[in-house]
């Protein structure tokens, strides 16, 4: 008992010491990915920052992604860190609107980010101000079984006719063209987004997710009609609604399906499933409306300064630091993604090189349906996509329901 009392005393003393230290140039950072790769990349960047700013005492809290999503709602208004990771686009909107994030346009201006991070600037902007600094993003596109394509003498399709021809040839050979797992809904949004971006373009995507276009609009209907043709022709694997995106790799790995509309984070999973780099490859989602400027999906991760942060000065130094080309190069090499700073160099993998090529030449970058649209709309929309993929005849009913949700969300 006595011993216990003593140790609590010591603990209390240490605790108070830490909190007194906190006053002198302390920087608290909340990060949201404890997986080995992302954690190593983040910690290396923090180490580099400490070396460059030895007077700043950095404390790091790394939390699980899902836990972070819940915790941020509390810590932003209660006990805020000086920096927190979060996502751009509509995901940051509620916090910006509640005044919980600090306006960091000054950091963008002072460091010339409008040029070096130009590609991502629109999604970091609300009301003409920038609210955070991104450190990584990745491309989406079509990952395919190169060995199967080679066997059937198929080339990477460049436009919709070639894509359909390839899909028909795959079907004739007994291969389902596309694998997908819609149990967690968002994968279907990837397909929808790309069809929309290729048929109607970037502005329609933005207008739709901003609630300016109805779902029963003819342009959106056209997207669903194209999708309906794909589903009805059996382009997608069966039973997708019980599969997660990882489950859907099984038919891809087994050679029963040949393509996967996915983000670059999936490459690791293909390799873990036993596919080699020679067996898989990547192509940009093919053109549908000829001559339409090509926009891409490129979800980014970023850092933000909470409005209640205690040490905003050093926090700004950190934001400026993590956008430097050398830091972004190293960080993204570690995590196998793409740096956003256009002065940075891209990692060696062929997927990263193609990804960089894809994104750096894109006319616009979308964040993804569930990040661009408000949460309630995204949820209803993605459920609608899943329902549509299971039964395309419900199309009109689904679109009308989405209109109803839209009316409620964007009033």
């Amino acid at each position, binding site marked *: 008992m006595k011993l216990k009392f003593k140790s609590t005393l010591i603990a209390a003393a240490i605790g108070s010491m830490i909190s007194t230290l906190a006053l002198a140039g302390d920087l608290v950072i909340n990060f949201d990915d404890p997986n080995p790769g992302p954690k190593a990349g983040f910690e290396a960047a923090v180490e580099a920052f400490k070396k460059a700013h030895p007077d700043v005492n950095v404390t790091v809290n790394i939390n699980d992604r899902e836990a972070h999503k819940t915790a941020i709602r509390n810590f932003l208004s209660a006990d805020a860190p000086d920096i927190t990771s979060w996502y751009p686009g509509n995901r940051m909107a509620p916090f910006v609107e*509640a005044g919980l994030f600090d306006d960091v346009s000054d950091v963008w201006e002072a460091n010339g980010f409008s040029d070096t991070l130009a590609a991502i600037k629109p999604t970091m902007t609300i009301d003409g101000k920038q609210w955070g600094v991104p450190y990584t993003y990745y491309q989406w596109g079509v990952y395919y079984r190169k060995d199967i394509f080679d066997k059937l003498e198929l080339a990477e399709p460049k436009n919709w006719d070639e894509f359909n021809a390839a899909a028909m040839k795959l079907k004739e050979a007994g291969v389902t063209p596309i694998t997908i797992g819609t149990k967690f809904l968002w994968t279907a949004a990837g397909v929808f987004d790309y069809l929309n971006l290729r048929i109607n373009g970037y502005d329609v995507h933005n207008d739709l997710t901003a609630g300016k276009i109805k779902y029963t609009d003819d342009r959106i209907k056209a997207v669903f009609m194209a999708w309906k043709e794909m589903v009805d022709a059996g382009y997608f694997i069966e039973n997708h609604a*019980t599969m997660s995106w990882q489950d859907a790799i099984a038919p891809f790995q*087994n050679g029963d399906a040949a393509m996967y509309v996915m983000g670059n984070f999936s490459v690791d999973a293909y390799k873990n499933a036993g596919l080699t780099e020679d067996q898989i490859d990547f192509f940009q989602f093919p053109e549908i409306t000829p001559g339409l400027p090509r926009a891409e999906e490129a979800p980014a991760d970023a850092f933000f300064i909470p409005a209640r942060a205690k040490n905003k000065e050093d926090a700004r130094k950190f934001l400026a630091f993590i956008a430097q080309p050398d830091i972004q190069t190293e960080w993204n090499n570690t995590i196998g993604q793409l740096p956003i700073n256009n002065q940075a160099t891209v990692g060696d993998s062929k997927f990263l090189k193609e990804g960089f090529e894809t994104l750096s030449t894109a006319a616009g970058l979308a964040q993804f349906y569930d990040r661009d649209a408000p949460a*309630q709309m995204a949820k209803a929309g993605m*459920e*609608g996509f899943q329902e549509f993929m299971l039964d395309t005849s419900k199309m009109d009913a689904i679109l009308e329901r989405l209109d109803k949700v839209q009316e409620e969300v964007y009033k």
Partner: protein
Amino acid sequence: MAVVGVSSESRTLTGPGPSRPRGWFHKNRMAIAPWLFVAPALLFFAVYVIIPIFQSIAISFYEWNGLYDVNGESTAQWVGFQNYIKLLDDSRFYISLKNNLIWLVLYMLAVPVGLAIALFLNQTVTGIRIYKSMFFFPFVISQVVVGLIYGWFYNPDFGVVGSVWKALFCEEVINIVGNVTTKCSVSPPDILADETWATYGIIFAGLWPQIAYCMILYLTGLNNVSPDQIEAARLDGARGFKMLRHVILPQLGPATFLAIVVTVIGALRSFDMIAIMTRGGPYGSTNVLAYYMYETAISEYGDRYGYGSAIATVLFLIMLVYISYFLWKMYQDEKGGM
């Protein structure tokens, strides 16, 4: 009560003499003591149950995304009964309500099935204890594990359902890259992804542990069935179903009541099974009110606390009816017992 009486008696024996003036507390100790004992429980019950109920009802009149602004003030906006009006026009809400009813009705199957198994197991054979524990086993494992197991069970690709189907309707072929795959004349049922069947699939999984629970309640009940009455009934020529209906079942009354109560509670607690097996999907068709509330208020695409609270309030009112009946029944029974 007895304990309080004893302690107060010993207190008077060892305490100072009666010459000391008696305080208010001393005079009223018989009335106060029970409250003192109940106080901690009451405090926690108030903080964690009663107050949140009223907070939740209060929030249901606001539109709120759960955020506080920089000054720590809630960003909620008063909307009056708007959330409830929206609820009336929400097809998802009706689906959830309907599923709640389906759960309540079908979950009741656990009671007769549990009774049947209990009757079957209520015999003296070597090793009967092993059989009993094996039947009871599903109740011991967590609901989450049951959900996972059944999720695999129903899986059309590698689950039991899928395998049986494949054995019946499919043949193995070699695909383009030389791997073995299956071709089916009729594609296997995808129970958890089918809006008509998914709820029944989850209920079936939930019944597995619930039947075990009812079975154990009846087994203990059967232990207390008086052998004299059975003997007497046998002499009067009662056998088989008649014996069960008129002699055994009346004596199992308390067990039946308990089985029904826990089964209703089990049906209302279906949250974990749904979360683990379908997450309310496909497209909301397996939601029950509790899960729909979680989805709108707390889940990743939720953050509509006002609307979620409105759903919670409706659920609370429905449960209130059941709980009132339950309390009333208990009260009646106790009165009858006296």
